[in-house]
């Protein structure tokens, strides 16, 4: 792969460009995530200590926490949220967090569903670009 392009399902529209950060496991954005700094704090998460700010976050889904929308909206409000989010499967809590942040703060962080097969091909460091219609381009780091 040098560069691939495909269409993703759009849960929240937005334009974004960012370096991929691939999470190996689902994440709770409440309890497992510090929304003040955009850092993963779940002690059991493989990417504990990583900061998602400005990165294109790739993850299977969020972990079943009702607090996930608030964690995402708060991180976006503080400017430490991800540039975009691509999920293995559709996730209501992630979508709602980004929708509310877009309405309140005018920051459109795209949330996409790319499926688990495409997700598995992505590596941290790849460049991810997306437009409002969900046209996604992934480029290997030079």
């Amino acid at each position, binding site marked *: 792969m040098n560069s691939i392009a495909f269409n993703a*399902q*759009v*849960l*929240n529209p937005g334009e974004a460009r960012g370096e991929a950060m691939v999470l190996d496991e689902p994440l709770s954005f*409440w*309890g497992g995530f510090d*929304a*003040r700094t955009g850092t993963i704090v779940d002690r059991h998460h493989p990417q504990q200590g990583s900061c998602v700010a400005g990165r294109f976050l790739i993850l299977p889904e969020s972990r*079943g*926490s*009702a*607090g*996930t*929308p*608030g*964690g995402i*909206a*708060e991180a*976006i*409000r503080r400017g430490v949220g991800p540039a975009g989010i691509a999920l293995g499967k*559709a*996730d*209501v*809590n992630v*979508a*709602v*967090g980004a*929708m*509310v*942040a877009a*309405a*309140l*703060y005018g920051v459109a962080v795209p949330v996409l569903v790319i499926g688990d097969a495409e997700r598995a091909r992505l590596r941290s460091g790849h460049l991810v670009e997306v437009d409002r219609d969900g046209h996604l381009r992934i480029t290997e780091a030079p």
Partner: protein
Amino acid sequence: MSDTASVQLHERDRALLDGAEGEAMGLAMRVVLRAAEISGAARLQDICFAHIDACFYNGQAHVDFAQFMVDNGARLAVPTWTNTSLVSQVDTQLRPEKDDPVVVSGARLLMDLYERLGCEPVWTCAPYQLPGRPCLGDHIVGSESNAVTFYNSVIGARTNKYGDYLDVCAALVGRVPYSGLHTDEGRRGRVLFRLDRIPEELRREDLFHHVLGHRLGRVAQSRVPVIEGLPLDSNEDQLKAISAAAAASGAVSLFHAVGVTPEAPDLETAFQGRTPEDEISVSPAELIEARDSLSTGTGGPLEMVAIGTPHFSFTEFARLVPLMDGRRVHDGTLFYVSTSRHVVALVEKEGWMEILEAAGVQVVVDTCTYFTPAVRGCRGRVMTNSAKWAYYAPGLLAVEPVFGTLEECVESAARGEVWRDQRLWRDETWGVRS
């Protein structure tokens, strides 16, 4: 996901999307519709009640969201009650504003905003203990996990577990995606748990219901469990214990108990005429293991007792008060009971508050002991009769939970050290054959 045509909408739904009732109601409708698309619902379902959790402070975004709704003309479609808050409006000393001004003032403002939006300010995680609860078959919005499980299982009202903002948006438009536990298919029993190897006497103990719930959550995860062999006269406090423990340790949002809960008059009805996907004969050994996993602390000096998770009911107070009457919590031990304002008013009417105060018991309302700094500052052994409290405590607080019965909590508090009712902890009591 631009294909909104796949979800059937009413005229008013479309008008809301078009902004006919303002920006706030438009956002609420967009959020509900997006949730419907994601869950694959073909249509929306009217609801008649909501219990929301977005009133629990979780950063400034929560305040901004509520403010946006209030400022832009949002109006609730159904009676909407509030879950616990981070702070108590009644006892401001529980979490003094000067110690944490941003969070405490934010949490207070959030409570004010939801009152202004028209919510019933009950501030409780056990809203089903208050008069005016929904009925069998009602479609509602629940958000707090134990309340969702209790409403679904014990009352037979229908709700999924709605996350932050979606809970409020659904209460505003009065509609939810018709999916999951709103549908008959979603409520079908999947896994059968038989209790025939567990002694009948144990099955009547409160402790057993907590332990069973904890085990149920672990094994069933998100599959609907059906319990066969629960005593037919299990009371609501015991069913609350199962609900809270199973929702905490797994993702159980609905369980059936044959002959006890309204959608399970018999096995066949609980499984809707189908065969269980899995059958489990609960063993004494697995219950003992589940029981013991709820205590990381062992015997020794006791720093605190924390009960009332979920909120203590009137009938639980009716058991606690005679146990405390004439006794005194040991110096150096704290005793907290979390409950709602509504239940406190009933307790005061009985003249019980004086007895509890004289005994050294502190009653916390509007919030939960997890969130009070006195508890957060605690580093020692904390005894609780709640499997849910014991399950979450090691992650949320730096304490060693010791799980036991209400009677053990009271006796331990009076002695200032962990006391065990040996009768209950013998292996034979749990059905192990010697």
